[in-house]
């Protein structure tokens, strides 16, 4: 492992070690570039992960103070927890379920295909599926995605059997155990999945790809990585010319440190990344870094989500095996005859008893609630995840008065569903119900969105500087040596789980940064 001095201004400083930052750091290290990787959380491992929902939640989650506003139900039920994402080495790749789907061609051109949707701030991505295809292929190989590169699909569990039976009765054509970054066979030094049922809690088998178990150890082997866990970044600084040149963070001992930098890449997920840019305001950048357009923090997307659980006369034991065990992709097309633009995926999901109590009907109680819980062993479940509309006032701002443990303004997450999101959710609830009724459900429970796991779009890519924050390489329109390297870059949300695309963009960005550095452009 490298030991890069605080006053060494030759390294790339990456903030955040999740899907974007962890991958980018490794890709740069492989090219011989020195990287300081700052991660606010601690370093865990398969050995320290817990098969315990609340225990793991306390171990891995980002629980710093946040506030919420807007009409979304999360603001009422989980007012201090707008997002369910992680503060740990590996970021939310420790917590993700592993679904690895490419964004579809038409979804990269949402404005072109969906038209002018009132109230939506739609834009085409400044890149195409063709631009990303070679990088998607690299990402799928790196992550060991099933049903790619000759890797067999995972065996389906009981929860999948229920979904499959209902899907077939409804005439759905595309239902299988998914493209998952979970080993179905031993691969890449990691064992195959043993169906523990705790994908969300950090995979204790290391069968699920994460930057913690794959990218970061690989980067460390190059000798070019200086990983600093428990390093909570407060702000990014710049020189008189306006280029960024240092990052200020609080280390594990509570001491403030300043790390010099040649290039800074922000990958703190779509709440912390814009917050950091906004909190880095200066006299030269009074609205925050990279924010001449005023777009930093705007167009916050969280995917149209919802869940459908159903109970049956016979046992299901849905918690046995992979959390996201199968998928139906038929609804992820753009077909406005359904009453909305864009599409959605249907993916099995299970929660353990403790989280089912918390999420089945947040705030719920009484006999109906208890009846559902009484039938927990006979329950099957699916998650609905679709494209939501970017809206300019769905945004991350920094709070005027509330401060975090370091005295920095906390982020506020403001979100209100677009009518398109609501229409899509209603349709998805209806289809989810139909699937389970076709499979013999005796009771169906539509479940409102959980705190956001797919946080996207708050520093979006745009062809024109006035429409977004970064260009097609994640490079700030305004500052050449400042990059955004996480899902904040997404111009639109698409219907697919975002991690594969975040990894893909990071691989592509590493090529670009290396090229720019060797050309002395940055």
């Amino acid at each position, binding site marked *: 492992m490298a030991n890069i001095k605080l006053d060494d201004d030759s390294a790339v400083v990456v903030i955040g070690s999740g899907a974007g930052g962890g991958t980018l750091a490794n890709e740069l290290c492989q090219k011989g570039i020195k990287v300081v990787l700052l991660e606010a959380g601690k370093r865990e491992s398969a050995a320290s992960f*817990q*098969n*315990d*929902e*609340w225990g793991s939640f306390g171990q891995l989650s980002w629980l710093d103070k946040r506030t919420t506003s807007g009409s979304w139900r999360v603001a009422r039920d989980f007012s201090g927890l707008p997002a369910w994402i992680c503060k740990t080495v590996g970021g939310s790749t420790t917590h993700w379920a592993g679904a690895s789907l490419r964004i579809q061609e038409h979804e990269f051109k949402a404005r072109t295909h969906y038209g002018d949707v009132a109230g939506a701030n739609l834009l085409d991505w400044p890149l195409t599926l063709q631009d990303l295809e070679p990088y998607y292929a690299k990402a799928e190989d790196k992550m060991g995605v099933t049903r790619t590169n000759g890797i*067999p*699909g*995972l*065996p*389906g*569990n*009981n929860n*999948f*059997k*229920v979904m*499959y*039976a209902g899907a077939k009765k409804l005439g759905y054509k595309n*239902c*299988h*155990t998914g493209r998952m970054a979970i080993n*179905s*066979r*031993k691969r890449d030094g990691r064992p*195959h*999945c*043993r*169906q*523990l*049922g*705790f994908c969300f809690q950090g995979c*204790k*088998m290391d069968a699920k790809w994460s930057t913690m178990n794959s990218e970061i150890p690989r980067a460390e082997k190059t000798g070019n990585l200086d990983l600093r866990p428990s390093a909570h970044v407060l702000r990014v600084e710049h020189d008189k010319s306006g280029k960024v040149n240092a990052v200020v963070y609080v280390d594990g001992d509570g001491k403030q440190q300043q790390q010099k930098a040649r290039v800074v890449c922000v990958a703190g997920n779509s709440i912390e990344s814009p917050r950091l840019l906004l909190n880095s305001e200066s006299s030269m950048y009074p609205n925050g870094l990279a924010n001449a357009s005023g777009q930093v923090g705007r167009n916050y997307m969280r995917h149209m989500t919802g869940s459908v659980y159903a109970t049956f006369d*016979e*046992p*299901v*034991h849905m*918690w*046995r*095996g992979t959390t996201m065990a*199968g998928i139906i992709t038929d609804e992820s097309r753009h077909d406005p005859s359904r009453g909305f633009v864009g599409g959605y995926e249907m993916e099995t999901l299970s929660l*353990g*008893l*403790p989280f*089912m*109590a*918390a999420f089945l009907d947040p*705030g719920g*109680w*009484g*006999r109906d*609630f*208890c009846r559902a*819980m*009484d039938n*927990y*062993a006979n329950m099957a479940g699916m998650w609905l995840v679709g494209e939501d509309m970017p809206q300019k006032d769905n945004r991350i701002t920094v709070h005027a008065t509330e401060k975090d443990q370091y005295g920095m303004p906390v982020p506020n997450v403001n979100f209100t569903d677009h009518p398109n999101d609501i229409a899509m959710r209603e349709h998805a609830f209806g289809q989810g119900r139909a699937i389970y009724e076709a*499979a*013999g459900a005796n009771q169906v429970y539509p479940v409102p969105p959980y705190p956001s796991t797919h946080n996207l779009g708050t520093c979006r890519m745009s062809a024109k500087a006035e429409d977004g924050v970064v260009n097609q390489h994640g490079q700030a329109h305004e500052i050449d040596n400042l990059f955004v390297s996480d899902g904040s870059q997404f111009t639109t949300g698409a219907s697919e789980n975002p991690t594969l695309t975040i990894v893909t963009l990071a691989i592509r960005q590493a090529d670009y940064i290396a090229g720019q550095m060797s050309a002395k452009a940055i």
Partner: protein
Amino acid sequence: MKQTSVKVDSPVGVSRRQFLKTGSGVLMGTLAAGSGVLATLAPSRSWALTLSTLSEIEGGKILKVTRGIFPHDTLDDAVYALVVKDLDAAAANDAGVASLLRDGLQQLDELASGDWASLDYLARENLVIKMAGTDFFEKIRGTSVVSLYNNEMAWAHFGYEGSSYEMGGYFDRGFQDLDWLPDPGADASPAKA
């Protein structure tokens, strides 16, 4: 007929033997065997809860309120007692919580025009429901939603199996044992490694 991992065949959901076995790890230091306040509420059970701030009578009443909010008819009082334990701890740390709970119990007596706790369980539940939305109700509901369902006794009752890593996951233990629906083909669900 298929087997569930936990047979739900007794009024308390799990057999006494299994209940005590499951409980031994969880209740150590929480519910001490032999004596104490809640033993009187379930005289057939050899567990008890030691309270630090709430009185025996208050603890027993709060247990009944919790049953009214989350009425699982066959779930043993010992599981509800874990909620009382956590509320007692909260009351010990915060006098505001203690008075919130005591005031709420008093309000229930007022709604009952007498001793609420002496009513039958449906009558008790109907009055608890009238308290919905109050801070008292929300405090107990919010505590219960974690405490009631995050313990091994509840898991045994509801059939949830908890941690699986030590058992090698479900790879050889029934992750695809559902047999009341047709199996998907190998294209949709390939054979396991």
